[in-house]
Every structure is written in structure tokens, then in C-alpha cells.
């Protein structure tokens, strides 16, 4: 098991938003985390990165307990997290953003090769490498954010709403890129609101409602599942 979350509770101060959630990701798997607004999807990714601590439960990565390891150790372990709303460094160039993605020693050693791979995957980023990130379009910034995550040579790539604000054409490109990444043995855990789209690409899905897991399973079993529909459409 690459990532294994066991029965975690998460609170913001005294306000509990995640109840007893368990979730896992195997190597080379693409897993979707689904749920309506405010159901706690981002909170779970942020907990895995330890931007928020969790009460109760444990988080394992490669069979090692990582619950209390500080956030900055995650990339070194092999977890890259592309935060919600891109969060590229606005006043740095595209290239500088990418270089910062390869901060830990191992990634830094093969930084130049990684950069070539990234440019092959996202040719636009090479053409724009000296442009300031905040002057890129929303879709380009999303590509940059994902590319920056890949520069850390992750075993697990977590992406929070990768398709937000992307045009259908770009979404199609992005799906292709995700499939390439998984084919290289990297696992992907991503958050998405569009159930049909997410399940069309993921191997498995988890559905959250108000901080609790309501259903989990293979994508094929979740598409057209009544319980899933109910969560998203209400009763």
C-alpha cells in the first residue's frame, strides 16, 4: 500500500469537519476523491500534507507512519501536492517555479532531465519559461502547478481540482497527461466535482458527504450508482 489513511478525524479548532475517514491508494493507481462543496475533500489532502493535523487515526506512506512529520518533508518522501487554486508563485518566472518544485536533494540531482521531461509534456511551459507566473492564463497556471508538482519526482501526486476553469480541449489534454503519469508508475489522488468525468478516468473513487465517507469502490460500480447520485443531487 502506497498511501494508507486509517480512521482519521480532523478539526478546525473545535469544529469537526472530517469523521472517521479511511482511504488508500496503491502504486500506479488513479483514485478520485468526490463530494459536493464543503464536504471536506481539500481538508483530507491538506491533512495528508500535514497542513492541518488530525485527531485520532493514522496516516501511513510506504508503510511508515507520517502523521506527525512536518509538511516540508512530504516531497522528500515522494508526495507532491498541487494545492487548490494552483498557488503558483506569482512574481517568479515559470522556470523559477519549476526549479522550486525540485527542492529536495534527489529531485535536485536530476533537475535538468526532469525539466526536459516536463517541457516535453507541457511544450507551452518551455515557450513561456521566462514569463512571470501571474501573467499566465488560468489554464496555463494550472499546467504549471501540476508540472511543478512533478518536478519533485513524486510516487504519489495529489491534485486538488485539476480541471477547474479549464476549457474542454485542455481538459482532454490534461486527462491524457494524467494517464501518462500513471503509466509511468506514479499514483494520482485527485479531487473533482464532476463525478462522471472523474470516474471516467479513475480506477477507483471515494465519495464524501459532510465529512464522512458514504461510498467507495471501483469506478465502474460507482457510475450510475444511486447512492452517489443522491449525494450530489440531494434527496
Amino acid at each position: 500500500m502506497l498511501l494508507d489513511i486509517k480512521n482519521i478525524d480532523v478539526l478546525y479548532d473545535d469544529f469537526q469537519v472530517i469523521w472517521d475517514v479511511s482511504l488508500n491508494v496503491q502504486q500506479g493507481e488513479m483514485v478520485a476523491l468526490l463530494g459536493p462543496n464543503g464536504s471536506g475533500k481539500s481538508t483530507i489532502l491538506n491533512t495528508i500534507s500535514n497542513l492541518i493535523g488530525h485527531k485520532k487515526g493514522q496516516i501511513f506512506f510506504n508503510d511508515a507512519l507520517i502523521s506527525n512529520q512536518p509538511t516540508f518533508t512530504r516531497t522528500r518522501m515522494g508526495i507532491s501536492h498541487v494545492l487548490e487554486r494552483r498557488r503558483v508563485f506569482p512574481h517568479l518566472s515559470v522556470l523559477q517555479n519549476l526549479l522550486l518544485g525540485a527542492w529536495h536533494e534527489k529531485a535536485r540531482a536530476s533537475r535538468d532531465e526532469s525539466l526536459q521531461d516536463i517541457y516535453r509534456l507541457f511544450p507551452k511551459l518551455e515557450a513561456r519559461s521566462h514569463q512571470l507566473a501571474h501573467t499566465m492564463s488560468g489554464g496555463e497556471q494550472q499546467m504549471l502547478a501540476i508540472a511543478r508538482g512533478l518536478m519533485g519526482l513524486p510516487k504519489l501526486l495529489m491534485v486538488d481540482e485539476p480541471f477547474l476553469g479549464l476549457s474542454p480541449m485542455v481538459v482532454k489534454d490534461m486527462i491524457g497527461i494524467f494517464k501518462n503519469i500513471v503509466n509511468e508508475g506514479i499514483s494520482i489522488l485527485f479531487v473533482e466535482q464532476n463525478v462522471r468525468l472523474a470516474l471516467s478516468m479513475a480506477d477507483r473513487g471515494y465519495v464524501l458527504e459532510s465529512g464522512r465517507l458514504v461510498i467507495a469502490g471501483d469506478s465502474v460500480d460507482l457510475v450510475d450508482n444511486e447512492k452517489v447520485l443522491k449525494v450530489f443531487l440531494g434527496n
Partner: protein
Amino acid sequence: MTFEIILQAIVSGLLTGLIYALIAAGLSLIFGLMNIVNFAHGEHLMVSMFSSFWLWSLLGLDPLVSIPITVLLMALCGVLTHYLLIRYILKAKMLIQICATFGLSIFIRALAQFLWTPDFRTVDKPLLEGRIEAAGVFIGQPQLFASVVCLLAFVMLYLFVTKTETGLALQATAQDREAAEILGIPSNRMFAIGWAIGLGCVGVAGGMMTNYFFIFTDVGVNFALFAFVAVALGGFGSIIGCLYAGIIIGLVESLGGLLIDPSFKLLYVFAIYLLVVIYKPQGLFGRY
């Protein structure tokens, strides 16, 4: 009023301006990095001057010789300030952050008065003394040297922030701390580095000023005020902005003193400050 006198005012304004600029750059770096205003900046300057003074009076080291020691001591002081105080208030409300660094300033000043008394001190017979004359303008050698060193330090600071990997990480942390942390950049360490560099700048300025300035426990007050003005003029968090702003302040102070009345020197500087705050609150210059 002759041309020489005006030229004299411009030159001395320029020279002090460079010192203001470096002090302000330290303040600006810290603010830009973690959104904390170091209200003890003037006291840190005072400490650096005393460090230089005691190294001279106890160990016989001339301020020019002891400057690396003073800078290192101040950098260490910065690291300690971060780990002993600042890191506990990073997530606190702004009012608490203000009280913390303001409280630190009172603490340092009171401690200095207790340990060293409020006497005025000077360094006698420093290596660098006297003045030179060029085109009818007199320039004190220690002042000239201090300004040149401050300018050099400024250039090094700028190159460090914009051209090195650590500088890049500092910029990233300043722009989005969580995103930087997620990429593996420990923000706590970056903050400590920021404090070390910020107070290191103050150490350069203070160490050089010991050559020609009185050393006393309240010496930092006016310098800190000018540093705040420079940071506001230059644009909060902008390092290059501090250079221009420092020079503007130095010129306004000396030309205003010459053309109007020297006893209102502070007034001219703060008038400029108010004008900028009202009409261009984002500051006059851009980032870095």
C-alpha cells in the same frame, strides 16, 4: 547661497541616504518575508553600534576591523529573535505581533540603559579619520567609507535574494508560504535566515556608523523611523525600493535643512511620507 553649499548638501544627503537604505532593506526583507514589522529595528541598530564600540574599547579592535564580527553577532541575534520570540507569534493577531516586537524594543533599550548607562560614547582615534576635499565639497572619510560599504552590502543583498537558490526560496516563502512548504522548503528556517540577513544589514550600517556617530542607547530611534518611512516609500517588501527611498530621504533631509531650516529636518521627511501614503499607498517602486 553658493553652488558649492548646495552640492555639499546633495553629497552628504546621498551618503546618509545609502545608510538609511541598508537599514530599511533589513526591515523590508523581514516584513516582506513574514508580514511582521520589526519595531525593535532601531534597538537592533543600537546593539550593533555597541557591539562595535565594546569590541574597540575592550579588545582594541577598530570598527573597520570588527565589522565582520558585528555582522555575525547581529545575524546570530536575528536567528535568536526568530526562534525565541517570532516563531511563537507567526499565527497570532496583528496587534499581538506589534506588541511583541514593540515590547522587544523596550526590553532591549531598557536592558542597554541598565547595563551601559545612557551615556554618550565615541570611538577615539579610529583608523579612518579626517576629510577629503573635491570640487569645493568636503567629505568625511568615515562617512564616505560607511556609505560605500553600505552600498556594497546592498548590492550583495540584492544579488543574494535574486540570484541564489536560497534567495529564490526566500522569495517563494514570501509569496506563498504554504505552497513553498509543500514543495519542501521549511518556512521556519527561511524566516530565521531572513532575520539573520535583516539584522546583518543593520550590523553593517551600525558597525560603520560607530566610526563617526555618538553611541548611546536611544541612537536607533530616528534611524528606525526613517527606515519605516523608507519601507513605505519604497513599497512594502521591495528591496530595491529601499535604495531609492533611502536616497530620497537623505536628500530631502539635507536639502530641506539647507534651504528651509535645519531644525525641521524630520518634518520634511514625514511630509513626504504622508504625501506618499495618501497618494500612492503601495509605494513608489516595484518588487525586489
